């Protein structure tokens, strides 16, 4: 049996695997240590309970942050969770995956004072986890209205919309192409942000309201037509994700070893055995957003020897926050700035290297980075749904909606990543779903009256 010696735990590594079982577990365990009861109270006590709090304004779902933190300080975690979930039914995921350093925690007045914001994300997680452990229930359904709403996509936008509609007494059927619910929470977020199958646990909590049916493995436009949804339901909410990875438009993109980052992460998140994932030695990641960071760190943690993120502009232009970049660097990921890929080098249909141009120098020279695994993380676009003759007004390939998330088609709402102007954050998708549900509810109940 071949045994590798290079693994951090010092345990023997079986043949064909990069790391020992202990290393896989450690590398993909929860990235943030949750607060314990005492540190939560102490941290909550640091909160100034601001009036018109900037953190609340900064939260896309408008969670009353000072109130929930004050409740934690009074050891009323369940009440705190109620405050969170009433605005953001995916408060648990957002507590784990939100880029808090650019949202609530960035707005915290403590930054001005001592550069140490309240750990809002960790406090939110403490409250929502505790409430979930205790099986606390916060919502009861209004009397049934008899209205039926179809939702396309069981991701953050779709489930948020479904939950709010169900609470208001409507009956909801969600069409989900994948085998599991959760969308990017289940298939896209970095594994160490969603440790312990959290996405499914949260979905379970959301569905416990009742009145929501999810049809898995059903693709709208293929298995069921959009027209059918329009006919059979009183309203339709489009909460689909961005299914198509953008191409680099370079020759050789079809070569073996050139992989869409989101596809690999999807595979990783569903892997029963991380040791069975294929991992190259010299990894190049093209892109500068969160997905690029996530794939770079995860492939490194899977045992890749060298990982380089290549981004065509400077560090301040990257979509990934400075904190995320710092995290990647600390993980041993190399970040190359001003690196514009100009061609792919392949041998016998397999990637061997990427040629870059120095994008910040006019007529700059090119250089080659050897690679056996190239990840594309340059964004995704909306996969067109076969709508037959029906077409939405779109801009930049996404659905155009008004401030109530209404599309140009009567009776059809849309929210989340699929709408124009979205910021691709789960928390914003949740807000879209919530607002759309309220708009749908108003429309349905007003037309009745």
């Amino acid at each position, binding site marked *: 049996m071949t045994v590798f010696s290079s693994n951090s735990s010092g345990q023997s590594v079986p043949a064909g695997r990069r790391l020992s079982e202990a290393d896989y577990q450690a590398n993909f365990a929860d990235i943030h240590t949750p607060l314990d009861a005492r540190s939560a*109270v*102490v941290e*909550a*006590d640091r909160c*100034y*309970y*601001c*009036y*018109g*709090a*900037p953190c609340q304004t900064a939260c896309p779902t408008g969670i009353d942050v000072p109130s929930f933190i004050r409740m934690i*300080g009074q050891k009323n975690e369940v009440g705190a969770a109620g405050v969170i979930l009433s605005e953001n039914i995916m408060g648990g995921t957002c507590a784990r995956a939100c880029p808090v350093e650019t949202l609530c925690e960035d707005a915290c*007045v*403590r930054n*001005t*004072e001592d550069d140490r914001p309240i750990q809002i994300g960790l406090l939110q997680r403490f409250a929502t986890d505790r409430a979930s452990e205790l099986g606390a229930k916060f919502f009861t359904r209004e009397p049934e209205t008899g209205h039926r709403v179809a939702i396309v996509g069981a991701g953050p936008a779709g489930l948020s919309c479904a939950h709010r509609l169900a609470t208001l007494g409507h009956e909801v059927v969600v069409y989900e192409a994948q085998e599991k619910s959760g969308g990017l929470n289940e298939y896209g977020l970095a594994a160490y942000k969603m440790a312990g199958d959290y996405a499914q646990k949260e979905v379970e909590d959301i569905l416990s309201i009742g009145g929501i049916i999810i049809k898995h493995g059903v693709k709208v436009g293929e298995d069921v037509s959009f027209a059918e949804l329009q006919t059979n339901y009183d309203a339709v909410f489009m909460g689909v994700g961005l299914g198509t990875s953008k191409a680099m438009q370079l020759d050789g993109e079809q070569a073996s070893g050139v992989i869409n980052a989101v596809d690999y992460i999807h595979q990783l998140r569903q892997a029963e055995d991380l040791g069975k994932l294929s991992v190259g030695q010299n990894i190049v990641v093209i892109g500068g957003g969160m997905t690029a960071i996530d794939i770079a760190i995860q492939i490194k943690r899977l045992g890749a020897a060298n990982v380089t993120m290549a981004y065509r502009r400077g560090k301040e232009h990257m979509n990934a926050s400075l904190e995320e970049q710092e995290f990647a660097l600390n993980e041993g990921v190399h970040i190359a700035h001003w690196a514009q890929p100009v061609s792919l080098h392949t041998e016998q249909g397999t990637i061997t290297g990427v040629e870059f141009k120095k994008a910040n120098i006019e007529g700059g020279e090119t250089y080659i980075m050897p690679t056996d695994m190239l990840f594309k993380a340059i964004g995704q676009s909306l996969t067109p749904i076969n709508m037959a003759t029906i077409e939405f007004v779109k801009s930049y390939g996404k659905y155009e909606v008004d401030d109530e998330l209404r599309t140009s088609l009567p009776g059809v709402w849309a929210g989340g990543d699929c709408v124009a102007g979205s910021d691709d954050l789960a928390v914003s998708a949740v807000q879209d779903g919530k607002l759309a549900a309220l708009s749908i509810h108003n429309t349905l109940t007003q037309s009745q009256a």
Partner: protein
Amino acid sequence: MIDLTSNFIGIQTPNPFWLASAPPTDKAYNVNRAFEAGWGGVMWKTLGEAGLPLVNVSGPRYGAWHGKDRTLMGLNNIELITDRDLEINLSEIIQVKKDWPDRGVVVSLMVPCEEQAWIDILRRVEDTGADGIELNFGCPHGMSERGMGAAVGQVPEYVEMVAAWCKQYSDLPTIVKLTPNITDIRTAARGAVNGGADAVSLINTINSVMGVDLDQMKMSPSVGQQGSHGGYCGPAVKPIALHMLSEIARDAECKGIPISGIGGITDWRDAAEFMALGATNVQVCTAVMTYGFRIVEDMIDGLSRYLTEQGMTSVDQLIGAATPSVTTWNQLDLNYVVKAQIDQDSCIKCGRCHIACEDTSHQAISTEINGERGFQVKDEDCVGCNLCVVVCPVENCITLRELDTGEVDTRTREMVSADYQNWTQHPNNTMV
């Protein structure tokens, strides 16, 4: 380092930091450790009559009020006076005084209000070589139910009577320890003065129930199924102690009787405040029960540096230095006008000053500056109450600015006068 030598009614100690009569001074072992750490003197834990020792509860004796970070803000106790044999206590006092001739050892006493009982105990204490006695007329729990402690301290005539016995039957300097569980502490202090006491010490602990255990639905802490009130002390009681101290220090009938200050003293700054309001020395208990005896090092160092900075050469110069600044409301200058002002550079825009003023006071703080979130005082509504200053989480961000003479107070539209005018001189006062 400045010499902190303290002289309290003739008892000379290397510093004015004493340990109050309490569990930390119950036996030689603790007292020796305290002196090794540097404490100037101890009030030996209260001795009672000869005979079978008292019995304390074997359940919880202490309860506490904590800040969110577990800072101990207040402590209460239901411990009685010493439950050790009188003879053991006396022999230990003799030895300790021999071993530590430069430190103060005063013995706290509590026996029934009978002349003979006091004569008996006084003789025993005189034989120990102790520097003085402190009459425990303050203990508010347990002993008071037996007609001693606070039950005596609440009746000025009893205070006077027992103090007089002590002066009559012994030559020991006599300190009367006062209870705060009384409407006007000056009446008890005057009793001590009239009885011939050499000094008073205050405050003893305050009647208190620390809380209720809402799961078990019973007061907390409790001894089995029930609890009883205890004596409250620690940082939380300091303002109450300072008030009572200043009342006695300013009372003509108390005739400048020396005062030993007690009540939540935790560091040198607390001690200096007590002394500035008239205490000759201070006694500490809760702070050492929280952190151990070693805190006296910081107290010695801090007080010494402070006195040096102030250009003082002895602790005596500090005693009572701030007493004249305390007066009655009727004497306050009604022509003194201040307005709050917010330093925009240090403001973190939490909005607490605004909501406190808006909801509960004078609607004098606005929420926008040039269309952006920002907080500013409206002078025309500000009464200078200081609420915004105390709720602001940033120290010195909001301050009070004194209006100059001749400046117009935009709230009252009156010019600020240079003349002092108090309520007794005010035209609106029809009681004059």
